[in-house]
């Protein structure tokens, strides 16, 4: 944490990114917003050894240990937006709780697509959730991370880490521009269980609807906390069984027969 070079690099990234500011690209009837935070992330990747090599191995290692801590101030800020809006949040709690089941959307879209692409048991690991840290641990425990399921969950984890923030930011702004979904609903949906993805989502929404900033950030942060609380249980009780079920159906649809029963899992279940 006493890596002065790292902090100065980040200061430089922040100054450049904030100087560029929010860029709005009009596209048909809607607008896509690109935020300073996205520039900071992309520029950050560009100064690492694979590209400009300004930040070295040491900076990358130190940065990884600091991300959790640097998030704390933002989390405190989210709380100060939840407080004043608490009555409205409580009034909306049925929506907040029920939208948590939207996680099933990952399975509905993911499993058939994975099978269609020719993936086998990787589909269970990769499509049962958005594969954040907790899910990686869960799949590791159940199937082992060197199994096809483990390969799936780790792959999606890496892709989510690299592209997730940018993807959620752009997706939120596109859905807000082109669908009748209310910004509050999109704000709740942004709380997928990853603080940086949620921030990218709500930030895009706030840039488009600045007058709703307090409610949008409060809904996003509350939903994200709920996902953090229920995410693993959703996976164990709902998403993994449903993935297994849908995988068999999708597999038979594509190959004309049911898949071989998974060997590893049965051994574990006998224990």
């Amino acid at each position, binding site marked *: 944490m006493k890596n002065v070079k790292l902090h100065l690099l*980040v200061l430089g990234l*922040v100054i450049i990114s904030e100087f560029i500011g929010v860029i709005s690209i009009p596209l048909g009837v809607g607008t896509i917003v690109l935020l300073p935070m996205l520039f900071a992330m992309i520029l950050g990747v560009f100064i690492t050894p694979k590209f400009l090599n300004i930040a070295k191995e040491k*900076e990358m290692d130190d940065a990884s240990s600091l*991300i959790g801590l640097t998030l704390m101030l933002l989390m405190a800020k*989210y709380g100060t937006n939840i*407080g004043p809006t608490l009555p409205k949040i409580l009034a*909306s709690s049925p929506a907040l709780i029920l939208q948590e089941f*939207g996680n099933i959307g990952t399975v509905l879209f993911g499993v058939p697509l994975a099978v269609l692409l020719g993936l086998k048991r990787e589909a269970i690991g990769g499509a049962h959730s958005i594969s954040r840290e907790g899910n990686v641990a869960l799949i590791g425990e159940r199937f082992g991370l060197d199994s096809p399921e483990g390969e799936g969950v780790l792959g999606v984890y890496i892709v*989510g880490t690299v592209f997730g923030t940018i993807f959620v930011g752009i997706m939120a702004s596109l*859905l807000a521009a082109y669908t009748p979904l209310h910004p509050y609903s999109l704000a709740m949906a942004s709380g997928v269980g990853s603080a940086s993805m949620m921030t990218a989502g709500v930030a895009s929404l706030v840039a488009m609807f600045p007058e709703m900033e307090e409610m949008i950030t409060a809904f996003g942060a509350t939903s994200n906390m709920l996902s953090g609380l229920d995410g693993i249980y959703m996976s164990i009780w709902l998403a993994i069984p449903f993935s297994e079920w849908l995988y068999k159906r999708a597999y038979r649809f594509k190959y004309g027969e049911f898949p071989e029963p998974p060997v590893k899992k049965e051994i574990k279940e006998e224990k």
Partner: protein
Amino acid sequence: MNFRDSFIVLLITAAISLVGNFVGYQISIIEAIPGMLILVAIAIGGIALAKYMPGKIPSVAYIVTLSTIITVPGFPGAATISALVGKVNFLALATPILGYAGIYTGKNLDSLKKTGWKIIILALFVIFGTYIGSAIIADVVLRIIGQI
């Protein structure tokens, strides 16, 4: 990481955010300092609670709870705290985090190369799936209960 180091990192992040808050949103650094110090104090309070309270509840949960409580209408000084923290733009707080995250992401590029294109497509659909699923449910329920 010990307590003192955490405090230093929080102050560094706060300082970087103050600069970003000025460059991006033209809020003078002096004007935003009180609000930023409140955020640092909440964060430290949350970290301390997580450390000394039983139950292994993560500090993030304490931090959000603390800052929610002190800004609920009716809490002494809630309006003042909200006004001071209001000087700190939340986008300005997010930019440094993504700066650190970007540098860290450089580490993952090799593993990304090893990940097949099929998994990359799958990952994007998986994120899209949970997002659209939650958004549709939220929208329907919010309309039914008349909140939007």
